[in-house]
Each structure stands twice: as C-alpha cells, then as structure tokens.
C-alpha cells in the first residue's frame, strides 16, 4: 500500500514540479513586464544634445525631430514669428530644452510621450489653441513601412463627420474645428487619435493592431472584431509563423496558441503534421481539423504544403463548437481559417524574401559501435544457447559442439566478430546512422508584388522552396504561384478572384509504397557496424551483411544507404485551388455574395526498385526489378451563396447571415504495378511485362444551409446564434441530414458605466457558449456493404472473385460533438497586457467507431455510431506588448493548456478496446483513449532463488524481468496489467518574447509538453529488448544485466534464441512506455533592419537581415527518434512508427527587402 502511495505521490510531485517551473517562468516574464511599466516614459528618459546658433525656431524643432523620436505639432506661422534663436544643451530632457527655447515667448507646450503639442498662452496664462474657427486639414496616412494606406477613415471625434483616404493614402478634410481631435481608423490597424490644435497638415503612421482585444478575427463567412466574439478563437499572425523554417505552416503553428497541439508526424519534408485541437474527440473517423483558406474549405487530409507559409497573413483557429458550428458537419475537430495576404490599394510594392540554412538530426539515439556490438551479440547468443539447457551447455562450447547439442543457427557465435572481441584495432566500424543522416540544405525564396489603382488591386507572389531531408535520398522542391485580385466594378458590385497554384516534387523515404520490408531508416538499427557502406572502389557494398550473416542467421539486412540511393520513390504534385466571388450591395445594410471555389489536385507517384540491390533476407540477384505508379486526381468544387445583413439602430447592432452551400468532391486513383523486368535499363513501369491494376474512384457531396445572427447592445451585451443543416452523401439513406446549432453570450463588463476605465484593468469580458458540430470523415461509401475483388486462379488461369468486405449500416450518421466554453478576457494597462482564458468541455457522441466485432461474423470490425468521449480542460493565453525598457521595446506571450480525456461509452456490452502492438493499448470506459497498458517491471531476476520465491510468469529465466503482482494473488497473469498514461499530454505550454532595440530585433519561444508517453517500436522491439538480432543502443548496452560482464545492470539479459514468456509478455510494460515530455527551444531569432539613404536611393524602402534557429535545444528524457511520431489511429496513438526521422534542428539566415 505504501509503495502504491509513494508511486502516486512521486508521479504527482513530478507534475507539480513542472507546474512550478512554468509558474516561475510566467512570473519572471510578468516581473519584466512590470518593471518596464514603472520605467519612465520616452520624454523623461531621452537626453538631448543640441548646439544651434542663430537658427529659426522651426529648424531647431526639426533638428530635435531628426535626432530623436519626438514629433512636434504646431502652427508654423506662429513659430516662425518667433524669429531666430540660439541654443546649446547637453544631456537635457525635452522639457528642459523647450523651457529654454520658449522662455519669454507666449508659446506653451504639452508632451504626450513622443508627441509635443505647442500652444499659445493667452494673457491670463490660460492655455488655448493657437488658432480658432474651422480649418481644412490635409495629410497622408501610411503604415509602419511607409506604404500609403487607402480607405482609412478619418473622423472628428465625438461627431459623425468623417472622410476616407484616397488610393495614395491622402485625405483632405474641410471645416474641421481647430480644437477638434481626429480619429484615424482602419481594419487591422490600431486606431489613432490626433488633436488638430490648429495644424493644417497632419500626417499619420498607423501601427498594426497588436495581438489583443482590438484585432479583427476571421469567424467563418466573415470577420469580426475580437471583442465581439463570444467563442474561443485564437489568432496567429504572419510574423510569428515566419520564425519557424518549414515548408508547412502547420509546423510553424506549434506552441503559438493554447489548445492546439501540432505533432510533427511527417516523415519527409513537405509532409503534414497531425493537428489536434482540444484533444482527440474521435476514435475512428478522421481527426483532421477543417482547413479553410480564404473561405474555401480544403479537401480533408489534403496536403497543407501547397500553401506557402509566406503568403499567409494570419491564421484563426475556431476551437469551441459555438465558433465552429458555422461549418457544421465538418467542424468537430476544430476549424483553421487561413487568410492569405491581401491585395492592397496604392503604389506598387515589391517584397523579396530569401532564406537559406541547414538542418540536422536532433535525436539522441546512439547505437553501440562494432566492438561493443561484438560483445553484445556474443552475450545474447551465448545465453540463448545456454539457457535452453544449462545443465548440458556452456558458453565456452564452440559452434561445432553447439550444433551437435542441437543449437539453432542463432545460438551460434558470429564467427566474423572474433577479431572485434580480441580488440584488434582498425576494423570496419560503420555508424549507419551517420551514413543515413546528413546535414541538409534548406532554401526558401519568396517574391511578392502588391498594388492597385482606383478600383482594382492585386497581389501576386512567386515562391520557391527547396529542402533536403536530414535523411539521405529524400528531398522536397516546391514552386508556388499566388494571384489575388479585387475590383470594385461599380458602387454596388465588387468582384474578386484568387488562385493558389503549386507544383512540387518529393523524393521520399519509406512510405506505404515501399516494398522493402522496412524503410532505410528502419534498416539502420539492424545494419551491423561490421560491414562497410562502400567497397574500396567507391561502389556500394551490396548484400555484404546478408553474406556475412547467413551462416549464423544474424540480421540479413541490405545496405540501407544503397537501398535509399539506388531506388526511386518520387511524388509529383500539382494543385490549383481558389475561388471567385461577386458581392452585390443591395442596400446600405444588405449584401449578397456568391462564390465559386475549386480545388484541383493531381499527383503522380513513381516507384522503382532495381534488381542490382537486394533487400532484407534477399541477396542481390534473387529479386527481379519492380515498379509501380500511382495516379491520383481529385476535383472539388463548392458554391456558396450568402446574404449578409448589417444594421445599427441606436444602440442595437444586428448582423445576420443566411447562406446555402453545395460541395462535391471526386477522386480518381489508379495504381499500376509492374514486374517481369528484363533488366534495369527502364526505371519505370514501362520496363515490366506483367502488370496489375487497381483503380478506385469515389464521389461525395454535401449540401448545407447556414444561418447566423449576431446581436450587440451598446457594445456591452452580445448574443450570437448560428444554425447549420448539412446533408452528406456519405451517410446512410435514413440519416443523411444533421442539424448543428450554437448559441453564445458575451458581456463586456468594462463598457459598463460603473466600470472605472482608468484602473489597471481597462478591459473585461465574460463569455459563454454552447454549440454542436459534426464529423463526417469516413469513407465515401461507408454506410453501404461493398463487394470487393479477391481473385483466384483455376489451373493457372485467372478467375476473378468478389466478396462482401464490409457490413451495411443504413443508419450510419454524423458523429456529433457538443461542447460548451466559458471564457474570460482581461486587458490591462491600456491593453498592453492581455489575458484570455477558457474552460472547455466537449463531448462527442455517436462516435463513428470501428467496433471490434466477434470474428465469427466474417468481419473483424464494423463501423457504427457508438460511444461517447469527453474532453475537458483550461486554456490560458497571456501576452504583453510594447513595453519599453529604455530603447528596448518588449513583448511577450505565454500559453498553457490542460487536457483531460475520458471515454464515457463504447459499444453495447463493450467496456474496453485493447489493440496495438503487443496489445499494449487499452481504451476503457472511464479511462482515457489509448492508455498504454501492460505489466509493471520492478527489476531483473539475478538468481533462480529469486524467481522461485516470487510470483513470476511461467518460463521466467534469470536475467528476465520481475513483474509486479498487482492483484496480490501470488501469480502473474494478464490481470496484473495496468495503465501507464497516454500519448495525449496532461498539459502543454509555451512562452516566448520579442525585443526590439534600435534596428535590432530579437525573439525566442519555447514549447513544452508534459505527461506524454510514447511506445516506440525502436525501443520495444529493437534496441532495448536484448534479443541480439538488432543493434543495441548505448543506453541498453550500458545497463543490461549480465552476470559476468555487467552484474549491476537493471535491464534484461541479452538473450537471442530463447524468448521466455516473460520477455515476450513484458514487451508491453512500463519499461517501454517511455516518458516523452519535452521542453524545446522552438525558435530563436535575431534580426537587423537596415535603414540607410544609400538603400533608399536604390529604391529599397526597407530591408532586414535575420538569423533564425529552430529546435536548437530540447530538454527531454525520451530516448527514441521522434517523440511526436504517433500512429494515425487514435486507439493506438503513441504507438510510434519505427524510427521516424527526428525533428530537425534548423539554422537559417535570411534577407527581406521591400522595394
């Protein structure tokens, strides 16, 4: 009992410690933030040096502006009338300087941070504006880069009077009261207020709105200010994506926001990651979130690499059901809205971004070298031989004696290892992982052009991405072309078109198509270091290990480097997606929009394995060449029609949406395999003479009706409701339609009159939402019993056969997710600090579950709407912007998400599903999905007495594992298995900061995961089981038990050839359920912005150089290759695919130039 408690406590304590660590980090960041708050403002800390003789006051002010960041706002006439002055100051503050300058004049001043307003004092000393009456104010509005901003609203504060800037960002505003304040506002930019104080020219630079309450988020079929959104929506902006060097934006999303886990499960560059939003809510249906690019939903599971990260303006993630319900049946896994860069008004702007670097492996896998390997194989073979009959056998027996005593091949010594055992120096000692991995190149180029005239704007970009894998023979090359055009055809009609084209070529390692028994990275751990990669003449040393190992049946592995480089596995992808829309303004408050979108994909896979290489257990020459090619063509199209209503009546704002959508997707897939090659001269199917064809086509359709109402009273009370009705062809004829409603409430407390605005907290909002979404990600015809081909031969002649392969289910219908979300948003210190927090509780019912069924039915599994799963957790996002520490400005962000997953129901009469390798995964009612399940190992038996005197598995040998008798019945039985945790973590966290100093910028971010377990094949089957067939890793070798060589070892004694029940059963045990928690330095970046006149003369408006490093440091106890490479199947998530290449460390440098 005590032991159990201790265990529970220590487990708990570890979690607590991790939590404390995070709390400390957060408080440190908070402290930094607070320090900057208490620091003095710009005007107080800036010291001026001036020495001007007999200069006009206006010139003196100009000189101050040039040498500092102060801006003077004044009427030139009045200042000019002051005549010339001399001034000489050193290290003085602005008010000291101005006091001196205006001493004896009637000019007064007021300083607001960097803005200095100059006034005329009247005779009574009362401050009044210099000018009275109404004036005309002119000026221009630009963004931070100096690009003109057309369409900016310029209004007089407190009135409805206003104007907008023209295409060049200029405005002219008549009849402005001289004492008025102008408000400049623009979507996506921070609103700025400027007092006129008599000035006739006011030029304004608008800053992009910081991540915070003022920003605009995409909500599906529209956008809205974040303050008006009641659900859980998080935004990632382009600049934070840019800090991660990757072909895919999904990887760059890692750790950026709460509630979203991105597992880098791709094997090749350009492969997608697994994105999990708020936990796994499904068991069998697809787990992909819906990805919507500029309003166009991408085909589920279609590659994300066809979108160039550098074309992305922002990504909004709809996490709760209420936000996602507008996407109805496809939204149960969350919705990711990608907004690409927009066409902008104004003069032509050209941007070039060049980024290059290198990548290398980051894992800690180290296999033993040849000398240790020789010891290892000897120990394993000796013990395998001796342990079968210890009375009659001895490790000293030579191979002939062993054979005479009935030894099998693997109980013989590997004869060729004797020189290694003798310690002879200079023998072949290949590190196969060194040979398989490499330092890989990374290159990315992106050129964009942006501009427009009066009515029409465009954005066009060209991207080229070229990336090698850290594994030899694999690389990825991509070309992207994006074009966007918006045109205001008339006052009422707007038209736009937008296309995204990509072409890529990917050379792959080990995919489903691979006919080797294992991919080359897998072969790396059964390739022995005694054999070379190359022959002396530089050619590949082929089949050397097969020859060497045949007599004693060691691993008959082919040279993985040769396998990789001599074969071909190449995929060509071409894709165009985009949409065209027309928007008709019916009245001032009613708009109709119709949009037609398409997604056309074609991919071609070309595979060839020549005959001049062997493969596992197959010597070169005994396998003919073979090839196959796979053509995939997919066409989707979608038509959306929406009617949008938007009206403000007094304090009531109503926004309504009605819509209709039709979508259809067609896929054609044809696979041609060829054998019967005469030679290797034709490296594609055309060289074959014996063919097999497999063709598959499918089509599915969906019809949706959409409605949404958003109501807002006085920016205080917000009520939203949506409803969507979807019909899908994938479901049974009785249950095609599903209805997905949602409802949400928001209360902006800080807009109440009783709320004191000037306090520390300036913004407070409470939110609550409930909604329902669906999941239809099953095969196109899953509700129908299908008949598939299974052919036979009669007397050598092909006899086509057919058989039912799935059972029908006319009632198969939506998997439904119902969730509620409670949120609190806080803005502090004028929204420099923002906290957003959520509690979520989502329950998925009618799970589309492949239920294991009694096999006497003729089926092993049956797809049914059965079962219920619940995910709950908290999310926190805390960020701060624009804190000043002297000339350093700082922003930071942190997030933390907790997640708990519980299975509430499975099939009728079913309380658990046990699956996966060695039956190591249990999904049990009341427990989490895919809990790792097995025996608890407490040590290694070193004597027969120890075995005899404790409960043990039958056939336990010394050197085998002690297993804990959990139910204390004196026997070790399957009832002594228990759960050890899941791949789904307990919580995830991330934190990072950005600093700017003069022209330098610096940023970093860490991401972490706690409470994750991984069951990796590399460990449970190869490097750490002690079987002596594959290579041992250094950890296992150092800690293995051997009565003579390593008596203090605590891992099983190497034993090849005599697998006891003990060793077989304990493959599913705590020993192999590895802790895969990590804290990773996701990125660290240093940039420098060059501002020089020379560049300006060359037409370069802005240029920045930067260095970025990704995944440079990872703190983790995990000993496998990649702690994120989980199996796709939710029921065995964490059953990591063998030796997925590790997540690369990347260092790149880049230049970004704007013309």
């Amino acid at each position: 009992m005590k032991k159990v408690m201790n265990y529970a406590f220590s487990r708990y304590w570890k979690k607590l410690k991790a939590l404390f660590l995070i709390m400390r980090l957060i408080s440190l960041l908070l402290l930094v933030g607070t320090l900057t708050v208490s620091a003095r403002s710009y005007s107080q800390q800036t010291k001026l040096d001036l020495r001007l003789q007999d200069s006009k006051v206006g010139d003196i002010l100009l000189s101050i502006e040039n040498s500092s960041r102060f801006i003077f706002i004044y009427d030139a006439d009045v200042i000019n009338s002051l005549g010339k002055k001399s001034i000489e100051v050193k290290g003085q503050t602005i008010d000291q300087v101005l006091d001196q300058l205006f001493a004896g004049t009637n000019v007064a001043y007021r300083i607001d941070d960097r803005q200095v307003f100059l006034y005329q004092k009247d005779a009574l000393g009362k401050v009044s504006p210099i000018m009275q009456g109404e004036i005309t104010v002119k000026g221009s509005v630009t963004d931070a880069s100096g690009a003109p901003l057309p369409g900016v609203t310029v209004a007089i504060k407190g009135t409805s009077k206003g104007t907008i800037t023209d295409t060049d960002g200029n405005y002219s505003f008549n009849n402005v009261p001289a004492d008025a304040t102008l408000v400049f506002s623009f979507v996506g930019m921070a609103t700025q207020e400027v007092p006129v104080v008599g000035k006739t020219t006011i030029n304004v630079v608008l800053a992009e709105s910081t991540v915070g309450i003022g920003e605009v988020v995409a909500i599906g079929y529209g956008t809205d200010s974040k303050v008006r959104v009641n659900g859980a929506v998080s935004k990632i902006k382009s600049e934070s994506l840019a800090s991660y060097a990757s072909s895919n934006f999904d990887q760059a999303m890692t750790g950026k926001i709460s509630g979203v886990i991105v597992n880098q499960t791709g094997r090749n560059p350009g492969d997608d990651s697994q994105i999990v939003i708020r936990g796994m809510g499904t068991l069998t249906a697809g787990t992909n979130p819906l990805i919507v690019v500029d309003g166009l939903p991408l085909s589920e599971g279609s590659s994300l690499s066809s979108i160039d990260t550098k074309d992305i303006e922002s990504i909004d993630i709809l996490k709760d059901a209420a936000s996602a319900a507008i996407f109805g049946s496809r939204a149960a896994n969350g919705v990711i809205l990608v907004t690409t860069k927009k066409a902008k008004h104004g003069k032509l702007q050209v941007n070039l971004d060049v980024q290059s670097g290198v990548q290398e492996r980051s894992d800690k896998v180290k296999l033993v070298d040849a000398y240790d390997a020789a010891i290892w194989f000897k120990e394993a073979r000796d013990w395998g031989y001796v342990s079968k009959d210890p009375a009659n056998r001895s490790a000293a027996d030579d191979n002939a004696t062993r054979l005479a005593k009935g030894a099998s091949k693997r109980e013989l010594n590997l004869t060729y290892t004797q020189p290694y055992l003798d310690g002879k120096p200079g023998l072949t000692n290949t590190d196969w992982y060194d040979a398989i991995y490499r330092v890989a190149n990374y290159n990315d180029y992106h050129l964009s052009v942006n501009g427009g005239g009066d009515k029409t704007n465009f954005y066009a970009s060209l991207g080229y991405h070229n990336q090698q894998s850290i594994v030899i023979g694999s690389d990825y090359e991509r070309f992207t072309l994006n074009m966007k055009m918006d045109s205001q055809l008339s006052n009422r009609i707007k038209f736009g078109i937008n296309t995204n084209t990509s072409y890529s070529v990917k050379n792959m390692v080990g995919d489903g198509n691979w006919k080797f028994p294992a991919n080359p990275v897998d072969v790396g751990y059964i390739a022995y270091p005694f054999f070379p990669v190359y022959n002396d003449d530089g050619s590949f040393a082929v089949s050397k290990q097969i020859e060497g190992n045949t007599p004693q049946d060691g691993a008959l592995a082919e040279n993985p480097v040769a396998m990789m480089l001599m074969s071909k596995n190449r995929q060509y992808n071409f894709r165009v997606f985009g949409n065209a829309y027309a928007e008709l303004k019916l009245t001032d408050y009613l708009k109709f929009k119709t949009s037609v979108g398409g997604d056309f994909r074609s991919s071609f896979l070309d595979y060839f394995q020549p005959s001049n290489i062997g493969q596992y257990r197959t010597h070169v020459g005994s396998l003919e060449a073979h090839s196959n090619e796979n053509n995939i063509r997919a066409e989707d199209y979608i038509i959306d029609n929406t009617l949008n209503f938007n009206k403000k009546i007094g304090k009531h704002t109503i926004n309504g949406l009605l819509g209709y959508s039709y979508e259809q997707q067609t896929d054609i897939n044809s696979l041609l395999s060829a054998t019967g090659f005469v030679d290797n001269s034709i490296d594609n199917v055309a060289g074959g003479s014996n063919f097999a064809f497999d063709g598959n086509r499918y089509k599915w359709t969906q019809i949706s009706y959409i409605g949404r109402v958003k109501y807002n009273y006085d920016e205080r009370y917000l009520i939203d409701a949506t409803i969507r009705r979807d019909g899908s062809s994938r479901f049974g004829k009785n249950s095609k339609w599903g209805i997905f409603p949602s409802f949400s409430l928001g209360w902006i407390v800080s807009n109440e009159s009783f709320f004191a605005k000037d306090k520390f907290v300036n913004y407070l909002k409470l939110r609550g939402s409930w909604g329902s979404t669906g999941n239809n990600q099953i095969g196109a015809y899953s509700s129908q019993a299908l008949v598939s081909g299974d052919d036979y031969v009669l007397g050598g002649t092909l006899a086509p056969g057919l058989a039912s392969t799935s059972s029908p289910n006319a009632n198969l219908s939506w998997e439904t997710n119902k969730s509620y979300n409670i949120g609190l948003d806080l803005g502090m210190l004028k929204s420099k600090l923002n906290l957003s927090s959520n509690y979520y509780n989502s329950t998925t019912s009618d799970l589309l579950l492949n239920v294991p069924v009694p096999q006497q039915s003729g089926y092993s599994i049956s797809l049914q709407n059965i079962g219920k799963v619940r995910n709950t957790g908290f999310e926190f996002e805390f960020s701060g912007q624009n804190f000043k520490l002297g000339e350093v400005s700082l922003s930071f962000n942190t997030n933390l998400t907790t997640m708990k997953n519980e299975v509430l129901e499975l099939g009728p009469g079913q309380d658990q599903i046990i699956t996966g390798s060695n039956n190591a995964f249990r999904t049990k009612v009341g427990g989490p999905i895919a809990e790792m399940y097995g025996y608890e190992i407490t040590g290694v038996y070193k004597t027969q007495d120890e075995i005899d005197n404790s409960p043990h598995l039958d056939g336990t040998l010394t050197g085998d594992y002690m297993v804990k008798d959990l139910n204390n019945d004196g026997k070790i039985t399957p009832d002594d298995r228990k759960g050890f945790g899941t791949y789904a973590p307990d919580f995830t966290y991330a934190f990072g900061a950005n600093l700017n100093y003069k022209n330098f910028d610096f940023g970093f971010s860490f991401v972490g995961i706690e409470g994750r377990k991984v069951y990796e094949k590399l460990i449970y089957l190869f490097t750490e089981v002690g079987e002596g067939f594959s290579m041992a890793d250094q950890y296992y070798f150092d800690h293995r038990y051997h009565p003579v060589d390593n008596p203090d070892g605590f891992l099983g004694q190497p034993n090849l050839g005599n697998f006891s029940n003990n060793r077989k059963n304990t493959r599913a045990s705590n020993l192999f359920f590895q802790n895969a928690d990590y804290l990773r330095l996701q990125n660290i970046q240093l940039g420098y912005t060059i501002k020089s006149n020379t560049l300006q003369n060359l037409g370069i408006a802005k240029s920045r150089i930067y260095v970025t490093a990704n995944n440079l440091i990872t703190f983790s106890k995990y000993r496998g290759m990649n702690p994120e490479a989980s199996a796709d199947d939710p029921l065995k998530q964490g059953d990591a695919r063998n030796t997925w290449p590790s997540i690369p460390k990347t260092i790149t440098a880049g230049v970004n130039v704007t013309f």
Partner: protein
Amino acid sequence: MKLIYKLSLIFTVLACFFSSCEDQLTQYPITKRVADNFYSNETDIESAVMGVYAALQSNNLYGLYVPAIGEVPSDNSWEEVPANDGGIFGQLDEFTSIPINGIFGRIWQQSYIGIQRANVVLNRIDAISFTDDAVKKARKGEMQFIRALLYFNMVRIWGDVPLVTKETTNPNDFFGQTRTPVADVYAQIEKDLTDAIANLPEAPSDPGRAVKGSAQTLLGKVYLTQGKYSDAKTQLQAVVNSSLYKLLPNVSDVFSIDNENNEEIIFSVQFASGVNGSSEGSNAFSQFSPSGTVASAKGHDLPTHELYNLYSDQDLRKGVYLDVTDIGTPYLKKLTPNLTNSSDGGSDWVVLRYADVVLMLAEVDNQLNNTSTAIDLLNSIRTRAGLQNTTAASKDDVDKAIQLERRLELVGEGHRWFDLVRRGEAISTMNAYFNSTGKNITIDQHDLLFPVPQTVIDTDPVITQNTGY
C-alpha cells in the same frame, strides 16, 4: 417589404438553380459493387464462389499458416531459427505458444472470412436461376465442402469454436455467442460434406474446383479423425471405387509444377506465379526453405534430420519430395521455387490426394481387421517409391508401418501433427522425440489444442481460453 420581396426572390432563384443538388446526396460506389445489388444473377454468384476459393489462398490459410500448423509442432519438422518473425513459428515448434501469437489470430480470422463468404453464397444461391441446374448444385456443393474444410481445421486446432452457418446481417448479433462443442461442429461438418457429396459432380468444370471425390475424401478423414472407422471406410472406398484417381507411376510427376491438377490430386488450393501482377502466388516455399538458401528464406518448416534419415537410399522420394542443402540441412521440394520473386511461388498447395486416401484406407482396413487389404494398400505406395513390400504382418506392426509410410509419403503436407493428435500419440511421440534430440521440452494434454487468439477474447469475453494458456 421590398427587402423581403428581394430576399425571397433571390432564394427562390437559388433553390431552383440547385434543386437537382439534393439528388446528388445519394451516391453509389463507382469502382466497387454494392452488396444490395450484387448476387443477383449467375455471373455474380460465380464471382462470389471464386471469392470463397480466394479466401483459401491467403497466407493466413493455405498460403502459409495452415500447412505450418500441421507440421511445425510435430516430429516431422523443426523451426530453424525459432526467434524469426517474432518467434511465432518457434512457439509452435517448442510448445511455448501464447494467445497473442499472430498465427492463431490470422487462421481464426481468415477461416471465418471464408466461412462467411460461403454462407453468403449458400444463403443467396437458391433464389438465383442458373442456365444449368447441375452447375448451381455443384456450386452449392463446393461451398459446403469449403465450409466443412475450414471448420475441420478449426476444431482440430482449437476444439470448440463458435459455429455460424448463416449470412451475417448485423455483426453485433454475435456478441454473446459462446464456443460450440466439438461434437456439434463435427455434426455440421458431416452434414455439409454429405450434402456436398450429393451436390458435387465427379469431374470438375474447371481444374481446381472441389468435386465429389474431394468431399468424400474429406468426409473419410473427418470420420477417421473421430475414430468412426466403418463410416470412414465407406467414403474412402467410394473414392477408390470411382476410379477417377490413381497413384501416378512416377513420384516426380506428383508435385511437378508442369503437371498440376493431375489424377492423384483430389483437392488443392491453386496458386500461379506471374499472374495478376504477381498476386496469385504463394510464399510458402521461401518461408519453408533453410534461411540463406533462397530469397526471403526463413527456415520455418524444415524436415528434421531424423525424418530425413528414415528414407532409405532406394527410396525414390528422397531427392524428389525432399533433399538436403550443401551443408546437409534437409528441406522440402514439393513446392517449386520462384527464383526471381520469392513471394510469388506457382505451386498449388495439395490439401487432399490419392496417396493419402490409400494410406487412410489402409489404416481403416487394418483397424477393421482387414490387415491383408491394408498391407496391399500400403505396398502400392511403397512400390511406387521403389521400395520392397512391407515386412510388417501383425495388425500392430502394420499400423506402425502405415504411420511411418504416411510420414514418408505425405511429408510436409500438413498432416503429421493432426495424425499424432487423432491417434492419441502426440504426447508420447513428441516427448520421446524431444528427449532423443536433447531438447529440454516436455508437452502435456493442454498442448494438443492451441490458444484461442487474445483478440477474440478481448472482443467478447464469453469466448473462453483453452486450458493451460
């Protein structure tokens, strides 16, 4: 008002424009048939029948595992590298099988797939009209034969197994079904075979199909297994009397890949290399060859040295049925290797052949005290093998001689283990064998049945595990 009018106009237009879309919500598979509309004519049924035969071709049945389970545990055969393939064959050889051993899981699963496919045909065929009613009868008989064959394998491997003879409409219906007692399963097997004998023609319409002789031979074996000697004799004698089958004069012709489906073959699972993109072959040869000798060789089912030594030098079968490698490892030669694509071997797997009928009949006659008939039958096998007549004379000695001849003649064909078990000799023979070869292994009663797959029990715990696992 005007607004509402406009609104309704727009939606009316849209609704009309897309009204056809609702029809699109019904989609039928484009490249696959739907069971609802399938099995509607003779052609469909013929394809479905081939689908049942195809189930036998799988590695999970006659492609690999069923032959192995009849040999590897026995004294005929050994596993060269017990550790190979996760030790699944090694466990068979050394009697250390555990319920997660994939061989059992796969045979169980695939047998029921085959049985269900046969059930579907049998359920549907009556409603379909055939141009020739004899063909329809023949197909029914073929399905009954295959269903019986699969159940016969299963009862011999596991004992009680759930018995299902109906087409599945809802897989969930089977939750709660326990294992059917062996006797009831045998009753069904006997019924199926009796029906099949009535339905099947004597000569096949295509080479490789089950015929009356196949069902009679199998029923004879089923009776023999249960010790029903006179029933067995009736069936086996009928096969002999049909005169459709004979011992080929030359042993090298029996398994020749150029001479498949010959007069000695009563039922074989058909394989062919280089057909259908090399997907109709078997990889049994490479799996059963000594490791290192041919591509992908695993040494999973090698004749023991002791067995090899039982062949006299005059025995014509030596060097034809089996041979030794350069380093003296015996291996089977009844299958022809494919040297360029080891997993696409073209040799059929012979399930039933006339030599087996002759030897079974000899055994039955001897048991029924017709020892001289038995001796004649035995000698017909020996003569073909180039051997002298047997010297055995007493019933007991003849019985032993017949069993020895079964080992020599039927080596590697998947009979030995089941012969030992049915004759109650498995425990004594194996323990003696292990003792003589210095292997530290002892078996007992529980080893005569193999473990029920863990997955099956995990799915529905009403399925009980066999004793001792």
